[in-house]
């Protein structure tokens, strides 16, 4: 009996304790869940979505200033056309005169370079640098961070006056240009402000800054991009976008024949 009463007494205290725990847990759970519920992969998806023009075409004029310790300062003016829903883009060089008419056409997984001098197209890769600048061809197309990368670590911090998520990414496959990346993303909306690209053996290869964005339709486009080569000292490219438009583009724009005849 003694033991029973003791047991009853004990069980009451335990029950009361458990009740408090449950109540406390129910209050704290949403906070805890919320605190841990930042879905970083969703942030990547959001970045991709915000940077893409899936519902409209996009065109702009890009002014590229490249600083190279050997070549000096070079300026390029490029007309860009994008149709993200079909995974297409076209970059036509307007300046300098010696490169005028050169075109970079991407249709799905294929990408070609057109040389007006030889009047020939040659297959190129998205991984190559664009026209000798520090930007990659892939920097101008549709963003696919969520598809290509996993978030391997994350933290929060400040970049200038912006509160940011700092995400470390690792490539899901061995076919993307940069196996590792570190991305600084603003909290709302999810805009990429800075990217560090690393090699397979985790050497810093390139740092990119996206200090200015413009809202075009439902999307955001970085109107200023700075790419700094981390291996070659004092080598960088700054790109400024002007004449932004989401006007519908004719289908023929994304064809080889257009690239051939446009600067004839």
């Amino acid at each position, binding site marked *: 009996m003694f033991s029973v009463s003791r047991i009853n007494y004990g069980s009451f205290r335990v029950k009361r304790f458990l009740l408090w725990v449950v109540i406390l847990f129910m209050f704290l759970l949403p906070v805890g869940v919320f605190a841990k519920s930042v879905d970083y992969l969703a942030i990547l998806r959001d970045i991709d979505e915000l940077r893409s023009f899936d519902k409209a075409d996009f065109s702009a004029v890009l002014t590229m200033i490249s600083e190279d*310790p*050997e070549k000096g300062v070079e300026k390029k003016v490029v007309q860009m056309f994008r149709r993200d829903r079909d995974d297409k883009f076209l970059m036509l060089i307007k300046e300098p005169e010696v490169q005028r008419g050169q075109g970079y056409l991407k249709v799905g997984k294929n990408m070609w370079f057109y040389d007006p001098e030889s009047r020939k197209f040659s297959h190129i890769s998205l*991984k190559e640098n664009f026209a000798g600048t520090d930007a990659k061809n892939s920097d101008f197309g549709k963003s696919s961070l969520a598809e290509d990368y996993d978030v391997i670590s994350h933290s929060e911090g400040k970049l200038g006056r912006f509160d940011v998520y700092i995400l470390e990414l690792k490539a899901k496959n061995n076919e993307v*240009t*940069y*196996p590792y990346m570190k991305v600084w993303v603003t909290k709302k909306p999810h805009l990429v402000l800075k990217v560090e690209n690393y090699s397979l*053996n985790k050497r810093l290869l390139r740092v990119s800054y996206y200090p200015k964005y413009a809202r075009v339709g439902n999307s955001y486009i970085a109107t200023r991009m700075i790419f700094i080569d981390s*291996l*070659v000292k004092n*080598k960088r490219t700054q790109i400024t976008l002007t004449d932004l438009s989401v006007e519908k583009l004719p289908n023929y724009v994304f064809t080889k024949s257009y690239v051939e005849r446009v600067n004839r």
Partner: protein
Amino acid sequence: MKNLIKIALRNTTRQKKRTVLLGGAIAFGILVITLLNGFTAGLADNVRDNFSRIFGGQIFISGTILTKSGRPVNVIRDDTKLIGIVKSFGDKIKKYTRRSRTMAEIIFNSKSVVQRIDGVDWRDDRNFALSLPIVKGSIESIDKRDSIILPVSTAKKLGVEVGESVLVRLSTVTGQKNVGDFVVIATVKDQEGFGISTAYASLGYLNELLELKPNEYQILSIYVNNINEMDRIADAIYAKLKKIGPVETRESAEASSPEAMRKKTRKSFAMLMGGGPFSSATREKRWVGTKFSVITLNDMMSQVVSMVNVLNTTGLVIFIILLIITMVGITNSYRMTMLERTREIGTMRAIGVQKSGIRNIFLLEALFVSIAGALVGIALAFVGMFVISKIPFGTDSMMWIFLKNGRVGFKIIPTEVLVNLLILVFLSIVAALGPARKAAKLEPATALRTEF
């Protein structure tokens, strides 16, 4: 006959100036064609030798596999069967070496140069290391994993000295960016003018950067004992590889159209320069396992062969023109000789020399002049070759690839020289035949009456 020969020999010395001019023309013709033939044959050999040294072999076998996503990757993973096939050729194969190859950006301070880098298994290819034309530094520390040997021009552009460190930025076989640290241990003479200068690093470290395993590689380079057999051996290797798995179609150099050959040359060259996989899966049927491709120096040299053919044809045209001029000269000379010697011919005929004897004297005279001229021409050609081959053009010259150790190399093909000599002698006799017959037909009495 002995007398006829004596008379013919004496006659050649009677009009010395004329004989020298005639013989000189013949000598000049054969001099030009012998020099040109020797030059073109030497040129083809020099290009072949130089390419062979640069690329480390004469037959090259590369392998391409497909990744899960269908991307072609240039790698030979398991070479057991391949080596078995190569070994089956016994002593026809001098040696074979395994190499990896890539185009990479070499960076030093704020300068960078795009450069082809060969990964060499130095333990396996010691002779190659010893044969490198070192300009600065030495190959003492060649076995260190981060050692790199740079072409002089690249080192100059980068401003890097032996002992200093450089960065190498490259793409792995699947296209990911990677970076390696290297120490420059030596600089070598390069052939930058032809865009084929090569830097050399250890196979193991380059493989690591290319994301290949230590036992994997990209190109099996084969040296054959007899360079003339390279295509036959390559065809035989191709046939054996075809039996064990997928192979890139190999067209023999003779069977291809010029356009196909040009495409093939470009493709072969791109592969050998580290320009990515030889086979592309995007436009072709997919395959399982390693798809091998077999190419030879001759596949890449089709343009050089065309150039040699053009030079030979040009030489032949010049030779024919010179022959025609010489034949006209010979015909005219013997006509004049016949007129000058009409009374002498009459006398000879009067004392009993037969018509055929008169004809033969003329023909023998032409034979002696042409043989003497041709021999002098050939001798002068040999002297010319010797002198020209002593002139140093330097290994930095744009013409490097056509030269042998910086000098023009000639190759004498005896059968070619003999054929040219026989053609010349035959045509000289044909040219003299007309006047000789006319001389033989002269009536002794008429000839004796003739006065000039």
